[in-house]
């Protein structure tokens, strides 16, 4: 048998002086640097300095006064974001965050330690905004802002998935995600943005969703999904779209219309809503729960999430139910209502089936699907047959944002334990607030950074391998669309034979529907346990 190539994680421990020296295009490794934004997307979003440029070339064609703009925008950011200012000032470099970053663990690159990542910009902050840095320069850990530094900032700002794991361990709560978010927005002001997020942001600004699906495409996708449901259950499901006067607007990440295994989750939504007779609607305009704008800047995030409340008002719904997605819930829990205050026409988020008032969503009117389903199950409104999931030994991956920007731990577990007989937790240090990123969040799902993603996903993959070996786990349940896209590749790379899916797929399998034919297969078309083909 062919000996597999061994992957080495080489750790380097350079001196502090060397750490201040920028990594430039000459040292950029393939598989780690992002392609530059496309001119058409930069233009469409009216971002500054659209031009062709290549991160591997010496000349990045920065505007002539790039330095002035950068420092001006940085000064503004320091005034606009207390988090950014404070995090520039109070780090003591204790190193508690260092081995918490999955990119650091996977790559061994010292600049991927959260503290070192923040130091990249902190050194600029010291040089231009603090007396110590102005006086003592390098000795105070300060350095001049040069084109090389810009290149380094770009390289490492896009090697962070904004997962906030470091923030949970920092004694001062320093959140690298905040720092990198602000840094990316400053870089965007001098025309240094990566390609991947911008393609989706531009598509979402144009069509309402990241995939750029037009209304007919969305309707067609939902129809095909309903057809798949019919094949499994024999039930004809009507899927409401753009329906005025519905009780609830349902918003999911757009990957749920097309991608696999997202598709099975979408089948789960349709089956559940049909079964409980929910008066709801999809929207082709508010057809995207995700918000890649949150990866780049406040303004872009705001631009993308405004449509949902507008659509809720236009359709006259009472409240909004959100699907399975990770960063979407950072946006929907922490950002959207601040960026675009909700319209007055919305009403109290009350579950029409159980009468439960979702008190924790009182003002923003957004309820998470896991909260919604958990409530239905607790009130015994669903007939479930968990044995239909007996071919799955399930583990649950807490997605970064629902975990550390929302605190959604027990609701999905409650649902999963009610629809599955075999559920196993991954090791304690890899779940809940200590959960590891899939390695592809925060705008890093781009193909050109595959090496980085596969290495960054190492700690998570190893935790999955652990439960696979120990309990025979063969199903990784996640509630994040990016997870569902990233994990199949990651698990193949690390040779772990585990399928990836979502909570609502498991619910769909277990849900006993009125008038359904005898089920012989699960939502994937696999024969159900105990059924002979």
């Amino acid at each position, binding site marked *: 048998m062919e000996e597999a190539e061994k992957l080495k994680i080489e750790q380097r421990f350079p*001196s*502090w002086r060397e*750490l201040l020296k920028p990594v430039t295009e000459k040292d950029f490794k393939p598989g780690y640097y992002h392609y530059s934004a496309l001119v058409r997307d930069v233009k469409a979003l009216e971002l500054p300095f659209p031009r062709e440029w290549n991160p591997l070339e010496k000349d990045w064609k920065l505007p002539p006064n790039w330095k002035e703009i950068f420092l001006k925008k940085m000064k503004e950011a320091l005034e*606009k*974001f207390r*988090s950014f200012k*404070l995090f520039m*000032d*109070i*780090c003591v*470099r*204790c*190193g508690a965050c260092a081995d918490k970053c999955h990119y650091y*663990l996977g790559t061994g690159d010292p600049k991927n330690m959260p*503290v070192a990542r923040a130091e990249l910009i902190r050194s600029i902050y010291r040089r231009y905004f603090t007396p*110590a840095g102005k006086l003592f320069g390098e*000795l*105070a*850990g300060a350095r001049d802002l040069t084109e090389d530094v810009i290149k380094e900032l770009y390289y490492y700002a896009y090697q962070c998935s904004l997962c906030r794991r470091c923030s*949970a*361990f920092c*004694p*001062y*709560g320093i959140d690298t995600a*905040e720092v990198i978010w602000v840094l990316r927005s400053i870089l965007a002001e001098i025309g240094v943005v990566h390609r991947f997020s911008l393609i989706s942001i531009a598509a979402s*600004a144009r*069509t309402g969703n990241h995939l750029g699906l*037009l*209304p*007919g495409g969305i309707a067609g996708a939902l*129809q095909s999904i*309903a*057809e798949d449901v*019919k094949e499994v259950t024999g039930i004809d*499901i*009507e899927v409401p779209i*753009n329906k005025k006067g519905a009780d609830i607007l349902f918003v999911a990440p757009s990957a749920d219309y097309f991608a696999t295994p997202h598709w099975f989750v979408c089948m789960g939504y349709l089956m559940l809503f049909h079964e409980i007779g929910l008066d709801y609607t999809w929207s082709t305009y508010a057809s995207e729960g995700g918000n890649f704008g949150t990866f780049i800047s406040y*303004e872009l995030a*705001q631009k*993308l999430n405004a449509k949902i409340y*507008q659509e809720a008002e236009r359709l006259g719904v009472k409240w909004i139910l959100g699907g399975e997605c990770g960063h979407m819930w950072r946006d929907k*829990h*922490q950002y959207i209502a*601040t960026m675009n205050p909700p319209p007055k026409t919305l009403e109290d988020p009350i579950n029409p089936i159980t009468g439960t008032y*979702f008190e*924790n969503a009182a*003002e*923003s009117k*957004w309820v998470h699907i896991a*909260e919604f389903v*958990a409530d239905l199950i607790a009130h015994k409104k669903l007939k479930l047959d968990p044995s239909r999931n007996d071919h799955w030994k399930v583990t649950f991956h807490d997605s970064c944002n629902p975990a550390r*920007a929302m*605190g959604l*731990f*027990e609701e999905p577990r*409650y649902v999963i334990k009610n629809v599955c007989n075999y559920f196993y937790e991954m090791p304690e*240090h*890899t779940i809940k*607030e*200590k959960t590891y990123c899939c390695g592809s969040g925060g705008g890093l799902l781009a193909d050109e950074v595959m090496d980085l993603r596969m290495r960054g996903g190492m700690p998570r993959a190893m935790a999955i391998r652990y439960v696979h070996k120990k309990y025979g786990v063969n199903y990784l349940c996640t509630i994040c669309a990016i997870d569902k896209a990233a994990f199949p590749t990651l698990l193949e790379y690390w040779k772990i034979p585990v399928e990836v899916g979502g909570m609502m797929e498991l619910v769909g399998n277990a849900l006993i529907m009125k008038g359904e034919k005898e089920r012989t297969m699960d939502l994937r078309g696999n024969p159900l346990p105990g059924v002979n083909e």
Partner: protein
Amino acid sequence: MIGVIFGVIIPYIAVAIFVIGIIYRIINWANSAVPLKVPTTCGQQKSLKFIRRTIYDRFDSPYTKWETVVRMFLEIFFFRSLFRNTRYYLDKQMARDARWLWLFAILFHYSLLLVLLRHSRFFLQPVPEFIEMISNLEAFKGVYIPSLYISGILIVAALFALWFRRLFLSRERTLSLPSDHFALILLLAITISGNILRYFIKADLEAVKELIMNLMTFNIAEAVEVANTIEPIFYVHFFLGSFLLAYFPFSKLMHAGGVFFSPTRNMPNNNRAEIHVNPWNPPYKGLTWEEYYEMYKDQLDEIAEQGYKVKPEL
């Protein structure tokens, strides 16, 4: 002359820099806006009644103001987040609890607190009873002669432990800037010189107290007079302490004040129940329904013709 410079002039300057510097830094932070409510949630959110929240969840993911206050209290007095610390073992691809840093940090900060409290005997007349009490307690008064203050020894030990981390652990060495070493060396110099004064070369404590009382009441003439009577060795400790005060507001030591402002810790996780207002929220610019409708009129009208729904055709 030494007495005047190190006993009167420098302390005044240092205290002035300390007070003004700290006020400046705090106002400076407070002036930065807080656009978003971004707590890092390290526990179960408050949602449905049957979703159980443990006591840890309530304080690691606070929902109410009180829970947030407790979170901050735990963070400041028990270094809650540092207590969560783990260490990753690449060979086993697993993390394990690692609380050494937490232990050294706790030892250092609480020793410092005790040392500072004991020093208040130089500022306060009469010395409050509880200061006497803790001094006696931690010194095991009567067991050793002269009585040995545990905190004074522990603080040196903890500082060495913290410094050795930076010197001998490769990752920490890479991360440490000269200023990180400097702060530790400065604190070591202060604490060691303090111990020397306490146990070996004793200064005239009555005179020191008189000097400080006079400085505090701005009796400058008398302060100068007393200052000149004190042995120079005392001024090593006194000067280093003054220097620390002046250095404090402009260094990483300001983490002591900054931790109170940390937006990921001092805000409740009730985002959806109480909307945060961004003081500089820009006006919204994005695709409106009308624009959207214009662009995709045909397809949208088709959905309308189908009665705003689709169903399986098979």
